[in-house]
């Protein structure tokens, strides 16, 4: 290594800026809008070890709630009477509800059944689609009754209007014959 190299190293050695350089810079940084993290980075920070624990707890709690809700709705059976009315049934208490039967009892041989399910009721384990269909049937029935009533009113109004028209026509005809 030549002396020129040494001298150049000395001449170009590092220097420090003024003492308030960092303070001024940080002031300028604080005035700038914070850079926004991209969504994948924010997602990645959720998976950091300390936060991951809370995410896992949250996910587990949500799953348990969902399973619990599903189980609860399964236990609330819908009973449809023969006349089409829908009634809700709660699960039998310890002693057992004599009006309701469980699926095991339905599938079991006749001799084993005790007590027998009532003849005028059938037990349905509802699914969301089934409930929607039942509600729709009920609504259609109500519409039909309302429609019948409206039709009767309309027929009455038409007959009154028809009678009035006949009277008017008759009066006009009589006036024409006797000027």
């Amino acid at each position: 290594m030549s002396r020129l190299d040494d001298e150049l190293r000395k001449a170009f050695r590092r220097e420090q800026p003024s003492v308030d350089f960092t303070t001024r810079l940080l002031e300028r940084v604080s005035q700038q809008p914070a850079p926004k993290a991209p969504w994948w980075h924010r997602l990645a920070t959720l998976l950091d070890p300390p936060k991951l624990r809370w995410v896992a707890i949250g996910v587990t709690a949500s799953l348990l709630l969902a399973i619990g809700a599903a189980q609860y709705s399964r236990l609330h059976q819908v009973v449809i009477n023969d006349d089409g009315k829908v009634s809700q049934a709660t699960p039998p208490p310890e002693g057992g509800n004599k009006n309701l039967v469980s699926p095991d009892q339905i599938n079991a041989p006749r001799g084993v059944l005790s007590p027998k399910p009532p003849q005028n009721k059938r037990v349905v384990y509802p699914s969301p689609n089934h409930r929607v269909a039942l509600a729709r049937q009920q609504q259609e029935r109500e519409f039909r009754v309302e429609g019948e009533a409206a039709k009767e009113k309309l027929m009455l109004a038409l007959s009154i209007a028809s009678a009035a028209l006949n009277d008017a026509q008759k009066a006009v005809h009589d006036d024409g014959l006797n000027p």
Partner: protein
Amino acid sequence: MDKGTAARLDDRLERSALGDQFAFEEIVRQHQGMVFSMACHFLRDRSLAEELAQEVFLNLHQNLRSIKSPEHLVFWLRKVTSHRCIDQSRRLKVRPQVSLEDVPEPAIDATENDLFLSEMLRRVVDTLPEKARLVVILRYQEDLDPGEIASVLDMPLNTVKSHLRRSLSSLRDKLSRTLGEVTL
């Protein structure tokens, strides 16, 4: 760099990227000498160099998430500072274009005063073209080898080598003419 230091630097970078101002301040304090010196040696103006260094660190603050490691950070700072130095020089035309021949002769014997020799060298380097000047600064301030300089300045390796060779030859010529008997 030992593993502990590397891990600490990595941690500092990560915290800065997440908005930790103290971690960012540590990064600035660690690298401000390098950035400021590059700018100062290139522009030969302390206040302009400080302003440029501030711009570089503000740019870093906006791009912290793209920095992958402490080594990448140093590389990024050198590269951005080099480009900004060239931009600044072209935009402001701060440096009067002085030819090598016009550099004033020293009034005293350089061997008696190292500070004077250093200043003389800086003045002579100041007469070099922009890229060649940056090559010399990166070589002697940052102690980079030609391959590293080529990657910082996006230049072919042979161009860097030829810049260095020609710059040193010019410096030798000028200094031997100026200082006479002193062998460099």
